[in-house]
């Protein structure tokens, strides 16, 4: 009797989509579920700890609202800056071959692994009043430290790699064939970029942008170090959460949940949009 093996394997057959053989050993679901719980449980725990009766009051305080507004504004701006700088970077990395390309790519990745506080210090060393770029910036009378611009810079610094890495992958997998056809039809490179390349990678571009938006939204360490924490100017939601945690843990949790909620909504919505347009 081989019934045991066979019966077990048909378990998932109630789902009509699973008519194709997945070939996964059954034990693999154990670590997969443990891993899933390990990530999901903490989020559940936070929700359970929340005093939902006070939720509305907590997130509606003037300082919370100011932080939320600032966060959405700066994250959105950072996303735009990431697009402006990151799309060309991804295109050059994906379409050109040059010596040291691998090193450049791994340098671009570095902010992913740098503790954000160190990133903030590095930004101060560069764009601060006595920083590396100070002579140039003074020449033009630009001073960014401790302004909303500094917040955007800090967020861009940590979010840019997300955009570049994921967009480069998309560009490579889409390939260059349509671009070549457009060129032989007489389209100059800028036209090809605008009318062919960008429309083609739109779904990938959207999800890369969202990833960078979400990362900017959660940015804390680099912001507090480089931009400081002034209500309405540089105090974004993560900084507000940090400050609130001194006095009112509930408020901090409430704001964290808001942050998570925004992140999940944005990623799920974009994922479903880009899946649809790929289908």
């Amino acid at each position, binding site marked *: 009797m081989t019934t045991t093996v066979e019966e077990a394997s048909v378990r998932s057959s109630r789902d009509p989509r699973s008519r194709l053989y997945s070939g996964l050993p059954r034990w693999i679901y154990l670590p997969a579920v443990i891993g899933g719980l390990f990530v999901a449980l903490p989020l559940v725990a936070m929700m359970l700890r929340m005093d939902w009766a006070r939720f509305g009051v907590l997130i509606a305080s003037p300082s919370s609202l100011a932080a939320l507004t600032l966060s959405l504004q700066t994250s959105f701006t950072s996303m735009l800056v990431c697009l402006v700088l990151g799309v060309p970077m991804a295109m050059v990395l994906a379409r050109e071959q040059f010596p040291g390309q691998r090193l450049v790519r791994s340098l671009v990745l570095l902010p992913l692994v740098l503790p954000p506080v160190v990133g903030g210090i590095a930004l101060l060393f560069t764009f601060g009043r006595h*920083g590396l770029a100070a002579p140039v910036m003074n020449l033009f009378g630009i001073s960014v430290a401790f302004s909303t611009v500094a917040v955007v810079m800090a967020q861009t610094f940590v979010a840019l790699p997300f955009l570049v890495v994921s967009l480069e992958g998309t560009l490579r997998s889409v390939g260059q064939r349509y671009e070549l056809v457009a060129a032989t039809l007489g389209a100059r490179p800028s036209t090809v970029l605008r009318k062919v390349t960008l429309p083609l990678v739109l779904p990938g571009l959207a999800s890369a942008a969202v990833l960078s938006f979400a990362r900017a939204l959660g940015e804390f360490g680099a912001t507090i170090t480089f931009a400081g*924490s002034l*209500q309405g100017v540089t105090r974004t939601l993560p900084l507000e959460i940090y400050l609130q*945690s001194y006095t009112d843990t509930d408020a901090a949790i409430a704001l964290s949940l808001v942050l998570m909620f925004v992140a999940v909504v944005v990623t799920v919505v974009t994922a479903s949009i880009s899946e649809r347009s790929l289908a």
Partner: protein
Amino acid sequence: SGSATPSQTSTLTIYAAASMQTTFDTLKTTFEAEHPGTTVMLNYAGSQALATQLVEGATADVFVSANDTQMKVVTDAGLNAADPRVFATNQLQIAVPPSNPAAISTFADLTKPEVKLVVCAPAVPCGAATVKVEKATGVTLTPVSEEQAVTSVLSKVQAGEADAGLVYKTDVIAAGDTVTGIEFPESSEAINRNPVVLLKSAPQGELGQAWIDLLFSEQGQQVFADAGFGAAQ
């Protein structure tokens, strides 16, 4: 120029240690009422982060440190317009969860082996104070963690993760009923001083001085006393 001319709007920028948040938020309201047209911008962060920012060229009128060490960083850089003055002091307290599971009542109780104690790392002000107390009393603490910030100590006590933590009295009061504070006499061995200074490059020097004056006024001192601070020196 700014403060004397009520018709103009001006902004006073204060870099203040995060531990000042509650008191300064109260004083901000008072100050803005007394100086119509003036907005007080409060940049709260760790004293050390603020000091770094100032040294790296940030523009502010007043710097309020949680301790002398970070004030020294700023004065050593020659950023001060006058000598710093101490407007409030602070003392350590033992913070325990409201249920006080380890039944702590004295400083010596902290050395009991089953007590999970968290303190601040010696590099941060509250940790430095802790070391001073240890030295003065000859008691050696064996903490399970030396945190980087008061908040980290508090949040671990609040979560019940630690049985006791050593933090400032003001932090205990700010935390409300999520922790219980236990005074201990040995804390007088390490009084922490909160200095304030007007900065040389202050765009609003007069307003800044007015803020400093407010800190030392009777009204200001009452706010600090309510929050658990000791008097100015």
